[in-house]
């Protein structure tokens, strides 16, 4: 569905240096990115701000032309066949709406029908289904500018799906949403992928999205693809430590038992990192034997820590892109 081969995008940035002089610097937003996403996959695309996520999305959708390398989406070249491709993909930008600010949602969706030349019957049927699934009924006649962020996002999702695209590209779809709306949106996307077989690529900073939805994760950092694979392997690769949280009866010196590293303390509560390959049960038993413990709990590393560690420590060499892929099933 998506094939990127050695794609690079560079921008020339002109900065003022002195009164009239300007310096030109070439900024590489994406550098030699290659990956393949098969039909029916659900892929998360992560990276810190400015890593090149949005640039990649813009090249996939034909908004930007790559400086070099080849991009194929649904068998088309996005930069040359942008409008043909537009009929086959749906795009949602979380940060800004693709709807018309001053029009009621209902009219915005009517405009979408004409833009994509959707058959009136199909449009009515899909719209009814989406209204039902995303619960748009209460605010269909409200101008888009008056919608809450969550309502607007549901409207944007509807607008992107009315033409029944094969691929849905989402740029930070859950940004700023409350817990309930997030859950609605995630549930909806999971169902869309599972039942309609729609391929989904989403960028996010919310690791909940990734853990809940994505079987495959790609991480981009400084314009380079740094990881491409399953979630489990990402956890293992980052060698994330499990954390033992110990509540002592009273504050005391750092706990010392074999196999753990003291991290920090807050009153009687202490955080201990368990090294890889150490048996947690033994550690718990040791701590309980040597100290007066009020409570104890073990925390698995969450993906957030894993990614944070990866960003900080610099990333290992890119994994082969086929690895961890769910495969071209689902169609």
């Amino acid at each position, binding site marked *: 569905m998506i094939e990127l081969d050695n794609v690079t995008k560079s921008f020339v940035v002109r900065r003022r240096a002195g009164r009239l002089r300007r310096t030109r610097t070439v900024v590489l937003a994406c550098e030699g990115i290659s990956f393949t996403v098969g039909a029916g996959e659900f892929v998360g695309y992560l990276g810190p701000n400015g890593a090149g996520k949005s640039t990649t999305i813009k090249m996939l*959708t034909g*908004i930007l032309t790559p400086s070099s390398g080849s991009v194929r989406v649904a068998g088309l070249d996005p930069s040359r066949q942008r409008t043909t491709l537009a009929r086959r993909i749906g795009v949602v930008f979380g940060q800004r709406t693709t709807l018309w600010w001053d029009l009621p949602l209902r009219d915005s969706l009517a405009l979408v029908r004409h833009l994509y030349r959707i058959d009136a019957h199909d449009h009515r049927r899909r719209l009814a289904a989406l209204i039902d699934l995303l619960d748009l009924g209460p605010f269909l006649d409200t101008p888009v500018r008056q919608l809450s962020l969550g309502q607007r996002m549901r409207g944007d999702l509807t607008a992107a799906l009315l033409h029944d695209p094969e691929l849905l590209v989402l740029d930070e779809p859950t940004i700023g949403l409350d817990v309930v709306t997030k859950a609605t949106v995630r549930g909806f996307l999971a169902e869309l992928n599972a039942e309609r077989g729609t391929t989904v690529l989403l960028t996010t900073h919310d690791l909940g999205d990734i853990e809940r939805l994505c079987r495959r994760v790609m991480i981009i950092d400084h314009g380079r693809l740094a990881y491409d694979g399953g979630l489990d392997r990402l956890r293992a690769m980052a060698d994330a430590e499990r954390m033992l949280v110990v509540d002592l009866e009273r504050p005391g010196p750092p706990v010392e038992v074999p196999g753990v590293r003291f991290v920090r303390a807050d009153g009687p509560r202490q955080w201990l990192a368990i090294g890889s390959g150490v048996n947690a049960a033994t550690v718990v038993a040791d701590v309980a034997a040597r100290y007066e413990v009020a409570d104890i709990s073990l925390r698995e590393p969450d993906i957030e820590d894993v990614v944070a560690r990866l960003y900080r420590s610099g990333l290992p060499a890119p994994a082969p892109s086929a690895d961890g892929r769910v495969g071209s099933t689902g169609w």
Partner: protein
Amino acid sequence: MASALRVYGLLAWTWIRAAAQYPVSMVLLALGTAVVTGLDLAAIALMFSRVPRIAGYSAPEVMFLYATSGLSFALAEIVLGTAERLGQHVRRGTLDAMLVRPVSPLIQVATEEFSPRRMGKLIPTATVLILVLPRLDVTWTPLRVLLVPMMIISGFVMFAALWVLTAAVQFVLIDGHQATKAVTYGGGFLTQYPLGIFGRDFVRGLTFVIPLAFVNWEPSLYVFGRADPLGLPTPVRFASPLVAAALCGVAALAWRAGLRHYRSTGS
């Protein structure tokens, strides 16, 4: 082309339907636009209440130029007036949303907030044209009659091309919308007057550089049976459609170049 017009019509119609939810405001706004447009006319009428001729041109002649230019301009503004917002869309990033849709962003910008209010501009100019035609002191030959719709249509196409050009410029000069207004609205304003009242070099500029003289001035000279102050040969009076076509070509190239620039640099 046909499908582009069809999409334009559908989008414009959707916007009109949305505006029609407030019918009173729609009618009032259209009337307001008509009144404001008519103010220029009042100024011209006021001048002629004092003197019978301005720089040798009679009141019907000046009114004829006002009406033909105004009609062409109003038509172009109705169809493409909002194209001048392109810079805003670049700045706000809403252009990206337009680029992921299967319709030219130019059509999307141009139909934005399409409202019958835009028709308000047609009322005063069309009225003046109808009133002034029988008052012109000319012998109406078939050629003269034919020149009137020709200049209105050519003028409309030229102004439309100018609007696309100014939109294209905003791909690069994102905040250039005030400067580009000078070209479109300034052009509309200039051609309302007999160019003969301006300096010769200025008129040369309007003939050969920004060919606004072909909107109505050159063909009108033939209608009035006057000699060209610049001394250009008679066929030039009929060159408006060619100039309009050429200007369209330039505008199309500029638009493509602008879009290509945007897509290689981003916002």
